[in-house]
């Protein structure tokens, strides 16, 4: 559970490095590395990634849109067959979320590969019995 919040926060925070020269898909390797370093379940990693990516892209877009007053997004929405600026914001957040989610999931499953099979089984048994690692 702790790793869930840490991952989300870290992916979000480090993702903002995209402001400083990282390519737009930079969140994918970032999510991969963070998930690798802070293991949890596959589902947890995916969700943490999704949340972080959603916030990263969504919040940044919201800030730009708010400063502009929403006019420009309205025009872009027209080009995309009449989407509203809100719908564009959702689409943006969703894209970011999806990218980070898969990046994180891949990182988590990469991590799983490095753990010996016995230990993995041990972890699984322990988890099922209600204790976390």
């Amino acid at each position: 559970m702790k790793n869930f919040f840490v991952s989300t926060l870290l992916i979000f925070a480090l993702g903002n490095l995209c402001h400083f020269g990282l390519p737009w898909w930079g969140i994918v390797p970032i999510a991969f590395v963070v998930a690798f370093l802070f293991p949890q379940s596959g589902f947890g990693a995916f969700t943490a990634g999704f949340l972080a990516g959603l916030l990263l892209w969504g919040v940044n877009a919201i800030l730009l849109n708010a400063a502009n007053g929403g006019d420009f997004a309205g025009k872009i929405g027209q080009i995309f067959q009449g989407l509203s600026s809100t719908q564009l914001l959702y689409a943006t957040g969703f894209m970011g979320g999806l990218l980070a989610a898969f990046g994180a999931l891949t990182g988590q499953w990469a991590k799983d590969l490095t753990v010996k099979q016995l230990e993995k089984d041990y972890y699984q048994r322990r988890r099922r019995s209600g204790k976390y690692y």
Partner: protein
Amino acid sequence: MRLFRFLFSLAATICLVWFFSSSLSVKGKDLPPLGSFFNPFSGFWKNGEPSTGVNFEDGTIPGLSAPVKVVYDDLLVPHIFAENVADALRVQGYITAQYRLFQMDLTTRKAAGRLSEVLGERTLKIDRETRRKGMMFAAENALLGWKKSPESLALLEAYSDGVNAWIDQLSPADYPIEFKLLNYKPEHWSPLKSALVTKAMAQTLCSREYDIESSNALQYFGRDTFDYLYPQWNPKQQPIIPDTGQWKDWHVLQPPPAPEAAGTIGALLNAPNGEMPEKPEMDRYSVGSNNWALSGQKTKSGKTMLSNDPHLNLSLPSVWFQVQIHTPESNAYGVSLPGTPGIVIGFNENTAWGVTNVGQDVSDYYTIKWTDATRMKYQLDEEVRSVVLRVEDIGIKGKPSFLDTVRYTVFGPLPFDYEADNPLRDCALRWTVHDVPDFSTLDVFLALNTGKGYNDYKTALKGFDSPAQNFVFASNTGDIAIQVQGKFPIRGKEQGRFVQDGSKWANAWHGFIPWDQVPGMKNPGRGFVFSANQHSVPPSYPYNYIGDFEDYRSRRIFDRLNNTHAATLDSMKAFQLDNFSQRAADALPAMLFLLDKKALNDAEKQMVAELEAWDYRYDANKLAPTIFDAWCDSCYALTWDEMDIIRKAKKPVLYPDGWRWIEMLQSDTASIFFDIKETPGRETATDVVLESFKQMEDYFQKNPSKKTNWGESRPFAIKHLALIDAFSRLDLKPGGHKTAPNAVSNSNGPSWRMMVELDKEVKAKGVFPGGQSGNPGSRWYDNMVESWAKGEYFDLQFLKTAEDTNEHLLGLQTFSPK
């Protein structure tokens, strides 16, 4: 198992990133890559500028010799204060690129026939036509001419380097939105591109000719009827330069003999054509402009005044970009053409100038007599000449490039030799725009920018070749002048009106009107000079010329200027915004006189009452202009059914000028041309007028929503350059008509309205239908559009120093040498 799921997830992730990086096609439209477009770090969100606050940052530009200060006002006009012209132009290039980079890119791509590189196969046809017309050839030749003056070239390069300094510091996040939408990168600028910008304007302004249409009409109707239908001179014309005896003592260069009539090239004219030509509008003239200057005797202040409103296709971003350029030697303000240095229309502390287009035809087609079927050699008098082949490599996005081979002859290129069914297939184009100039056209404007009086103006204009313009001028010492300036071939009588025989060198152009014999006028006794694209001179001018000239705006403006006294800037506004149509004032009384009102029902009589009460003004809130316009078009079309018959046989043919038709309505009502060919009886003008009225009424019965006020009924649009509706303004409903001084039509109109009073402190007002910024996400993209539509103007901030303060100034930035 774990390996599998890892590989699966890795594959899915890579696929996802790949998917968001690729350009998909949805319903035939290319989408930009979704990831790069939607992300908030480098995608479209970055192009939406903040709606409040400004931030003008200092910067460095390589190549500057000293710091340059730029003050911005609340219209985002940059006021450039530099130590020398080269620095000023370098910064002008930098700033123009900052605000109009996409426009500069698209304009030059269009002129160079390189649209398909970014828009794909759908623009291949346009690119081919552009290349075959020799646009790139023309730009290359212009540059050859400009290179003759190293000082000139250095200034052009300074501008170009300034543009490139802006481009070089751009990251993809900062690209204009259109580059992101169309998924391509800006490329470097060059002096050749500046040449392309001037050629694009030349294409708009002086590429029209009706050689084949006139040839067909001559062959079909015979000489006498041809002269009856298409007289070249309207007796009611007010030419730009009237005959005041100034030509009688001229030593005039001998014109060549008139070329043989088109009948000798009958084989050409009988060639099968491809498509049916479109039905032309009444009165062919579309691009045009107004300008005038008043001497102190006609103004309230006793100072000279100048006005100019160039009429062009209206687009966003606007054709023009306002700028002020201040150096220790001069201080000028006006509009510039993005991509070229200097100020094209404007004023400085002592003088003002403006331009309207000259309607002279400077494009002639010559038939080429091939000596064999390969069409590589042609006959010229006794000699056999070889064509020069030019291969045009047209890049197409996503496909291999298209290679087009164009034949060039001693006259020029053959634009249509690849279309088997084009009547001009074997014709070469001789066009002044192709010629290597003696002087740099751009130097002309730089000289006008720094001119101090009449003599500087005359010196500046010398050598300006194309597109020919009527340059109006006023100085604060009381001089006004106008000059019809351009490179005009010395023509035989009617030479160039028809397709000519290119196998005889005698038919070619042999010389041009000398620079000191182009028509001009200074300080006429009547106290004003003006032009509205009408005839340059009356028939008594010693050189022949042909072309298309305007007949209505000019007469109206003449009346107004002639009768004005104690004019102020407000009077000039009224003249510019005048919706009165001389064509309506001429045609409607004749039509109403001929209309048999006894044959009308009540609803129709109501319409007549509406028309009788009309003041001939195309005001947005009036119904009468809508009714008249529909009736007039219908009446004109019905009269010229003879032309329709020729056109339906797929031959292009000339339609008579509107003024000629109106003359016939007034005094030749039994003319054979009022007969409607389809019907067994013989109609006269009365029948045509009644029948067209009924047709008009019927049209409005079937389309009641169209019977509405003029502003509502016509589809006015200011479209984005790449025709993106979301970036266009489709909501405006201004008044005006192309035959009124306020020459607003569906997507064409006054692209800049300027008026200047040359007092000790120069006062000027201006507006254009757009904004300084080319970014649809900027609050300066279209901020002047509504004012323009309402007929409002802004005071132009003509600053003296970079330290001037007033409530319109937003901020200052300094550019330093690197």
